[in-house]
């Protein structure tokens, strides 16, 4: 014991760190901030540390080469002892980190912590969010599989729409004319050196700012932030009703971080590593690329925006969103902190959360994508064929053979790109069906060139049978007038 003490004293005589560290540990924080609502920042830091460790472990075996990366991941998954577990930890760590950073940001926003004097802390936090998302995207690229390959293609296609500079930015992003070796190498450099280096620097700055300015006090309705008086009021609060950070507040941080690591490890063990999916071979086109979870909402937005709005939304949208986030502490730097007195803030959060949640949920189903194998893989329900004429059954065959099923569902199976057709005969008359099939329209291709008159007749005959038993099919009432029968 005495030896440890004297060794410690020897080091401290040279480093002189004990006093400042003790000062940091014992600095007073408002008593109410020793709360479970204040644990997300430290949890994000903990997961970041885990990401660094597991990242280094993966780098021991990963080969950042377009020809070899996919194979090295297979080796990690299947041949190296517990390689799958390290990959799973790193992959789940990524999801946890994005989630915790978002929750942390939400808490900071709702508690008004971005207001005076913590504007810079918020701005650095926004940078940290962008860097975290950058890590998530570049990490997905390093998993160099089909999803990564085509995801890069989407990134390049979006970049190419930037006016004037677009094509050059694509070359810069890909490191050449196509997605290939140099592309993976530069994303490796970004994921392993550039972004983590920036993250470490900005995390340091972020924590330094928290220490210098003090943790945000628990917001009380009616306690107004004023530039002139805030710093003095905060100081008084920490003196009158404060506790030392260690051990007063840090206990909950430590408990929560431990819990998060445990939950993360449980996910890693239970669900295993992410991918890799198919080989990154562009000649394998039987693929349905999907982005990782936190980019699913973007995938939905890209599918649902009207074509004419897409490029402006893609190029201007992020600039506006980022501008609003960065400007927030300047146009809302004073006033109420409590969410109970900030209805617009709460409603904004709800709106954003509902929008992102809806888009993410939709993207899981992707109703806008044709189901590429429905025409050969999803049979027409037997009840739609039973007791039908030969012509109608021939029409069902045309329906399958011409890939109608890829976009139109029958009996709940098939694509959702177009409307489901179980009741189409109730909605459209024979003439309307023929017109729609031949001329298309309403976002449906025209099939006039690809259907013979006989095929069209058969297909329409089949479509006319698609109505519920108790409901008569639509008919053209003018036909009755023409033939002298009252409709």
């Amino acid at each position, binding site marked *: 014991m005495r030896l440890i003490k004297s060794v410690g004293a020897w080091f401290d005589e040279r480093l002189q760190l004990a006093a400042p560290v003790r000062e940091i540990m014992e600095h007073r924080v408002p008593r109410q901030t020793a709360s479970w609502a204040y644990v997300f920042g430290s949890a994000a830091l903990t997961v970041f540390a885990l990401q660094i460790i597991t990242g280094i472990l993966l780098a021991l075996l990963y080969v950042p*080469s*377009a*020809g*070899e990366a996919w194979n090295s991941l297979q080796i990690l998954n299947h041949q190296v002892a517990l390689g799958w577990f390290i990959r799973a930890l790193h992959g789940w760590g990524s999801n946890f980190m994005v989630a915790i950073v978002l929750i942390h940001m939400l808490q900071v926003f709702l508690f008004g912590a971005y207001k005076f004097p913590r504007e810079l802390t918020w701005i650095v936090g926004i940078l940290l969010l962008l860097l975290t998302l950058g890590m998530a995207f570049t990490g997905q690229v390093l998993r160099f599989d089909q999803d990564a*390959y*085509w995801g890069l*293609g*989407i990134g*390049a*296609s*979006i*970049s*190419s*729409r930037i006016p004037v500079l*677009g094509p050059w930015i*694509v*070359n*810069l992003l890909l490191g*050449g*004319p*196509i*997605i*290939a*070796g*140099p*592309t993976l*190498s530069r994303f490796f450099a970004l994921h392993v050196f550039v972004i983590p280096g920036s993250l470490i620097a900005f995390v340091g700055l972020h924590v330094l700012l928290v220490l210098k300015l003090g943790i945000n006090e628990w917001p009380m309705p009616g306690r107004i932030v004023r530039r002139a008086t805030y710093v003095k009021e905060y100081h008084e609060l920490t003196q009158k009703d404060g506790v030392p950070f260690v051990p007063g507040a840090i206990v909950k941080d430590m408990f929560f971080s431990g819990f998060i690591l445990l939950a993360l490890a449980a996910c890693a063990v239970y669900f295993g590593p992410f991918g890799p999916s198919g080989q*990154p*071979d*562009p*000649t394998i*086109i*039987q693929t*349905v*690329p999907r982005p990782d979870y936190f980019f699913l909402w973007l*995938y939905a937005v*890209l*599918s649902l925006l*009207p*074509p004419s709005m*897409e490029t402006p939304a893609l190029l201007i949208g992020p600039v506006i969103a980022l501008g609003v986030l960065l400007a927030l502490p300047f146009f809302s730097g004073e006033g109420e902190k409590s969410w109970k007195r900030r209805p617009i803030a709460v409603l904004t959060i709800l709106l954003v959360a509902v929008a992102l949640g809806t888009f993410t949920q939709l993207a899981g189903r992707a109703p*806008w*994508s*044709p189901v590429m194998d429905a*025409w050969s893989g999803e049979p027409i329900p037997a009840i739609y064929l039973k007791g039908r004429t030969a012509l109608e059954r021939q029409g069902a065959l045309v329906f399958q053979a011409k*890939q109608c099923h*890829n*976009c139109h569902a029958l009996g709940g199976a098939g694509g959702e*790109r177009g409307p489901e057709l179980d009741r189409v005969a109730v909605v*459209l008359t024979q003439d*309307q069906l023929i017109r*729609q099939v031949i001329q*298309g*329209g*309403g*976002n449906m*291709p*025209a099939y006039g*060139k*690809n259907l013979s008159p006989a095929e069209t007749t058969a297909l329409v005959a089949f479509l006319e049978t698609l109505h519920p038993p108790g409901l008569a099919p639509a008919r053209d009432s003018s036909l009755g007038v023409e033939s002298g029968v009252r409709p």
Partner: protein
Amino acid sequence: MTAPDRLSRRGMFMKLSLLLNGAVGVVLAVPIIRYLLSPVIRERAPGYESWLSLGDLGQFPEGQTRIATYRSPAANPSDGETANIPCWVRRVGGAKFQVFAINCAHLGCPVRWFPQSGLFMCPCHGGAYYSDGSRASGPPERGLFEYRYKVEHGNLLIHAGEMPTTGAPVARLTKIVPLTNITIGKPPCA
């Protein structure tokens, strides 16, 4: 002590050292930036595009659309399979071809040809194109990207090399047809 308007010896050295380091910074920055921009500042005059063979004409039956693959002219050994680029070859008849990029004109996903319905369909955001590459439906603003081609000594050659995006050379060949007659969200027979 010197008067404030006079340059002291120490002050002058400070300024000189800043000037020297600034100059060294610029001297180093130029090659670094040049290195970083090397994918943009192309070494060769024609850029990344060149004439590449897709093979014998016999592989492409008249009136049909077949997939073909070429090796990227910029390929290097570490590229592995990523340098094998597929494309769709439609032989309209005789020596008349259309060679489409595999990449959807929307956001670059691989389109698939369905000969039965005569459509190219994209698995990502649901773009669809007719057999001649023109836009049929979905989010794309234009038809498929088309490569320039020529037939030489019984071989089909295309002018390719760069991933087709809206800004790439291949995209400048085809005009964007303005979106007309598209009724989104309106029932077809309203």
